[in-house]
């Protein structure tokens, strides 16, 4: 488990616009290990999405670099589970899940097999021929998750995938994500502003400060797996961690108000 999978070295990102610069991320260094589920928690606008977008290859760094270790040759480096609206409306559920595999031009039989497997895994067999307009928010995010897992990347990046869901659906999807994840043991970097979510899912929680975004604290969350919401809620360590994170976030929000 202690093999470094992602290493980020002194990464800084500045946005520059008309003589006005904003430091979104400042001197970020961290390591994420193979098979680890890491949650990045911070106040909104702290640059956590920017960090994820940099790792996803959608944004460039200003200074510093990062490395994602390649395991198997034919594997994509990373796949992202986007916030809501991330699935493509003109492709059916099936085509959306197969999207990454199709972009890699894998043999048709492989695409079919893996797509079917993950569609079944997220319980959307009956809906595989439908277009996203006919799906609920929760089902759409299931498609998004299935698409990322089907692509079988080295690491998974998740950008608040459950933020737009109602609480019931959120619980269900979180547990489903955990069960799929436990089967594959992928390295995951998961962004959230929900403390509960971070405590349920992660092995380790990284806390970020408000602008400029820095990683200021790390919390180990070693409640044994397999987990579910009840187990996490009733565990005494959870309360301690919850309060610690909450205090930290309050502090940051206060700071950014000044």
């Amino acid at each position, binding site marked *: 488990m202690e093999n470094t999978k992602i290493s980020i070295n002194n990464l800084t990102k500045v946005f520059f616009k008309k003589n006005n610069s904003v430091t979104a991320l400042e001197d970020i260094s961290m390591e994420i290990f193979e098979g680890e589920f890491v949650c990045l928690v911070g106040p909104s606008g702290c640059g956590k999405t920017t960090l994820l977008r940099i790792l996803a290859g959608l944004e460039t760094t200003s200074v510093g670099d990062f490395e994602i270790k390649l395991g198997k040759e034919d594997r994509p480096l990373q796949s992202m589970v986007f916030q809501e609206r991330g699935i493509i409306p003109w492709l059916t559920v099936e085509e959306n899940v197969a999207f990454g595999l199709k972009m890699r031009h894998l043999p048709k039989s492989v695409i079919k097999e893996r797509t079917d497997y993950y569609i079944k895994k997220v319980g959307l067999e009956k809906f595989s021929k439908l*277009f996203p307009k006919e799906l609920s928010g929760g089902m759409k995010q299931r498609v998004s998750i299935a698409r990322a897992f089907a692509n079988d990347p080295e690491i998974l990046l998740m950008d608040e995938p459950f933020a737009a869901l109602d609480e019931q659906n959120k619980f269900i999807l979180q547990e489903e994500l955990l069960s799929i994840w436990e089967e594959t043991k992928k390295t995951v970097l998961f962004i959230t502003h929900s403390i509960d979510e971070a405590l349920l899912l992660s092995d380790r929680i990284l806390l970020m400060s408000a602008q400029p975004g820095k990683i200021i604290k790390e919390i180990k969350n070693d409640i044994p797996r397999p987990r579910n919401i009840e187990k996490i809620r009733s565990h005494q360590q959870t309360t301690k961690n919850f309060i610690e994170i909450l205090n930290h976030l309050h502090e940051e929000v206060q700071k950014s108000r000044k």
Partner: protein
Amino acid sequence: MKEEKRALTHDPVEVEQQEWKKRRLNERWKQTLTIASPIFLLILWEFLSRTNLIDVRFFPPPTDIIYTFYNMSVSGELFHHIGVSLYRIFAGFLLGVIPGIVIGLLMGLYSPIRHFVSPIVMALMPIPTLALLPIIIILFGIGDFSKIFTIAGSVFFPVVINTTAGVINIDSIYLDVAKNYGANSKDFFFKIALPGSLPVMMEGIQMGQAIALLTIVAAEMMGATSGIGYLIWTSYKAFLLKEMFVGLILISFFGYLFSLILRYLQKKILPWR
């Protein structure tokens, strides 16, 4: 009122069924109104014309126009005009739509092309193609091609502008998804850019279709020897107003028919909307 009804029927299903029946009746009534409106107009016209309340010379009664329509159909003269005009409309439509889509996609996908071409498009767009008709006739003669070219010129602009807008306005999250999942440029074009721009592009094509019909009439007024526009124009000049109305009604009919066909195609092509 409400109280009374509640007292009469206690079954909730029955109450809702009554409501539903009322709503359905209301829908039917609206449908009837839609169908009745053109019929009402025709009857009114017939009446006013027969009773000489409006000038019969300018507004011959619809039944007379239908009779003229029948005579012209029997003689085969009408079908010749229709055939010629439809050919010009289709050819001109395609000649405008296809380059419009190609150039529009290029402009949407490649910003240098967009920045170079869009001032030209913007500058040419306000010039009515019909005003260029004399030059077009000098260049291409009085044959079919000059009419086809005129129509193409008018159809091109809404299509090119809407296609460009369609590509540019694709939600950036889909571009991110494509990039994140490693789409190459060919896949990006066929899986993201083309399908994503289709809805707005189709709007442009709808507009182009309407413009094609508007243009054909005017284009056939100059240097033409056949076609619906020619029929309208020569009938008007010879003061054969019934024949002229036949031409006008044909244009209106085809306009309606084409927009129905395009709307049907739109539903077929864009099942995901």
